[in-house]
């Protein structure tokens, strides 16, 4: 065979190897979240917040010359697709780490996967859930949380409400691990005061805003609570609030961070416009990140600036028609902070990324500053970077920090 004929073949073979070598230079970060269904706002905003920061990093030289790429899959807030996506990310996409997962029922189900891929050193970073199982044995060691837990959030809520004299607390929650996690948080927080929740009602995950929640409202109204703590996704929670207000219950209703304050407020505002009733009145939302409107914080300024600059879009192939991206949101800001933590970890690893070193490097982070006036500290037995809870309420169509609870004193 002559050289003339061999040369093009060699060239072709080299060409085949080329894309893989190019890809190898990117740092692939795996994400499975709700990009469709009633909770799609969470996945999309989390993704957009993270992308805003990663885009900025990638454009300014990347991590030691490597770009960070988020490989995102949609699980629609359902456990089985989440498991499938995770396996795909690990086996097929060879993700360096898992990041920004959304939801308790989904994440609690992939935890055993992390353990079974122990040899591959697969870690889950900053999932969008405050469930206890991510922070406790046997799976806590594979997860690095940034946000405070639901237990932190619910305890804070209960403490504040009990201090205002509102001790008849009812819980409205999603019938799954997430709802149970919040329910358990409330239960434990009440137990410290020697109290019990006066009533409870559940709803099915995946409920839409147009659905009726009168059944749940009736169950809770019967026990005449002072406060309702709601552990759900924004569509279900918003629908419950709407029906509770329509039924004449004007007691405070508190939601935890997962509810996604901005998308929820958006839905309620729409209803307020049509009925004339102010559905956003007497609402409390606990947050695990500072308000994205608190521009006193450097991270908020940076977030708003980068969001404005890059106008990040949802993942192209997962774009759901009919979703209007938010300019800013708590969820988005959390995603932004998650990305900042990720970049910090990757930067600390130095050139030559190896998965086995992730755990040691993260656990060595002490009092890191993400620009939110709260130090982030990890340790071998501390896989939760932040524990501060922020309380907000709505004034008109704006979220304002809630510093004075006396308005609800009884």
């Amino acid at each position, binding site marked *: 065979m002559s050289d003339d004929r061999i040369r093009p073949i060699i060239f072709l073979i080299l060409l085949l190897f080329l894309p893989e070598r190019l890809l190898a230079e990117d740092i692939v970060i795996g994400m499975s979240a709700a990009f469709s269904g009633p909770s799609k706002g969470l996945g999309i905003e989390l993704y957009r917040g993270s992308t805003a920061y990663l885009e900025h990093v990638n454009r300014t030289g990347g991590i030691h010359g490597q770009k960070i790429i988020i490989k995102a899959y949609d699980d629609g807030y359902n456990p089985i697709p989440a498991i499938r996506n995770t396996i795909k990310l690990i086996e097929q996409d060879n993700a360096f780490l898992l990041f920004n997962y959304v939801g*308790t*029922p989904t994440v609690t189900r992939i935890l055993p996967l992390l353990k079974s891929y122990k040899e591959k050193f697969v870690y889950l970073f900053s999932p969008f859930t405050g469930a206890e199982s991510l922070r406790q044995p046997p799976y806590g060691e594979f997860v690095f949380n940034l946000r405070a837990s639901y237990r932190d959030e619910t305890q804070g809520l209960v403490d504040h409400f009990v201090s205002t004299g509102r001790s008849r607390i009812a819980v409205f929650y999603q019938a799954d691990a997430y*709802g149970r*996690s919040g329910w358990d948080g409330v239960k434990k927080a009440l137990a410290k005061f020697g109290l019990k929740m006066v009533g409870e009602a*559940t709803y099915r995950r995946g409920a839409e805003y147009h659905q009726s929640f009168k059944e749940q409202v009736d169950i809770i109204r019967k026990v005449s609570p002072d406060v309702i703590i709601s552990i759900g996704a924004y569509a279900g929670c918003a629908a419950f609030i709407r029906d509770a207000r329509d039924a004449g219950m004007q007691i405070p209703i508190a939601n935890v961070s997962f509810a996604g304050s901005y998308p929820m407020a958006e839905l309620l505002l729409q209803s307020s416009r049509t009925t004339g009733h102010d559905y956003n009145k007497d609402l409390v939302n606990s947050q695990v990140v500072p308000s994205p409107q608190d521009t006193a914080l450097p991270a908020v300024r940076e977030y708003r600036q980068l969001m404005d600059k890059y106008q990040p879009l949802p993942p192209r192939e997962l774009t759901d028609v009919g979703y209007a991206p938010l300019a800013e949101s708590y969820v988005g800001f959390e995603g932004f902070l998650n990305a900042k933590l990720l970049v910090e970890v990757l930067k600390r690893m130095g050139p030559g990324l190896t998965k086995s070193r992730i755990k040691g490097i993260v656990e060595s982070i002490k009092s890191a500053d993400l620009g939110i006036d709260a130090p982030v500290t990890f340790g071998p037995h501390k896989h939760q970077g932040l524990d501060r809870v922020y309380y907000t309420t709505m004034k008109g169509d704006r979220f304002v920090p809630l510093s004075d609870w006396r308005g609800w004193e009884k």
Partner: protein
Amino acid sequence: MTRASLFTKTLVLIVVLFAIIATATSILSGWNLYRNLTQEYQSKGVAIAKSIADSSVEILLNADVSTIQSVVDQFTEIEGVSYVIVFDGQGEPVSHTFVPAVPGDVLELQRQTRTHIFNGGSLTNNLRVEGMGDFLDISFPILAGVAGYVHVGMDKSLIRSRIWSAVATQQGLMFAIFLLSVLVAYALVNRISQPLKQLAAHAGKLATQDFSEPVTGPSDIDGLPKKSRDEVGELAESFITMEHALRQSVRELKETTAAKERIESELKIAREIQMSMVPKLFPPFPLRPEFDLYATLVPAREVGGDFYDFFFIDDNRLCFAIGDVSGKGVPASLFMAVTTTLFRTTAVRVSRPDEILFLLNRELCRGNESCMFVTVFCAILDIRTGEVEYSNGGHNLPYFVSHAETRPLRNTGGMALGFTEDVTYRSEKIMLRAGDGLFLYTDGVTEAMDEGENQFSEPRLEEFLQQANGSSATEIIRGAVDQVRRHSAGAPQSDDITILALKFLLSAAQS
């Protein structure tokens, strides 16, 4: 008609059988399925409850209920599992899958069964929850009830729907089989009934068919014995054989009938001829007031061998006779014709009865190859005196009927004519007075039998003649025939009946 009714009967039978089988199998398989499914669901529920209970021990003790919830949620994805609820050691629900709330019935059941000692581990209860349905509630203790209890609710409606769908599938199959059976039965019945129908139609046509006509072309059932080699084929074959035999016998019958008709018409002509040979015009001699004469001949068949005759051989002498040829029918009538013809010609030539018989016998004996014979009574009345000279050739002796007595004439002792030539006859004389009569008859009168084969006989005749004394000749004969007919009372007439009656009214000499 035949096919329709056969088919209908078969169809009804199949439908009834099908209905019985379908009902029986439905009930049986439904019951079986219910038992098996309940058992299966129960063991499934027990397995789930046990698995949750086993995996929950540590988690419950660690107080991480969201993980339990996560475990519990997974099990609701299993078909048939409606709900799962986990109670802690204090009996408080810590995880469940109910929306919007845990039904009171479930809490109540837990309260009731909490104190129950779990023998084999699990406890199964039938639970009806208002607004949710019927469940098989399987409870299982966690750490012998210290750490809590698991309740798994298996949906009973699923069992029911499974049963219904299974029964529906089965019935669908049964119906398909049923349809197939009907089609097969239809084909079968058709195959059997088609030839039967053909046969029936053919038989129907037979009734209107002209068997005397020759067969035109093959019959529509000719192919049947070959086509259906079964009882129907056999039937068709016997049918064809029968038809052939029928045609044969009809043909023969027709031929026979034709022959008989021909003979009958010939006999009719013969009778006409025979009847024309005896005088039938009565009163025969209206210008002769001296006597009254009447005669009749009733043949047993169309033609007979009897005869009578009377004629004047001169102005004052009336010759009259009666005879009976041996045998009956055509030969007898021919012999009778010969006899009467010869008798007339002979009587004109000689005017004495014995001579007439002698000559007549001689003529008859000549060329009498068939050896026939005839009895003849011959008499000549002198109407001026009333003297009757008579001679008898083997015939029944006539009766003399007078006011005083009724008796047979004295015999002249001659034998029947036709045997042998050299026979001589004697004659006798008797004197008739006014009112006296002679009654001549053949043995057809006295030997006429009733159904018990009793003959009319001479005594009866004599009795009749005595009673009829004084009547006219016509009346006597009609009366005699009537009596004989009455005696035989419908029995077929076995012999010719011939009677001649003569009544002397007045004589010139006597008056």
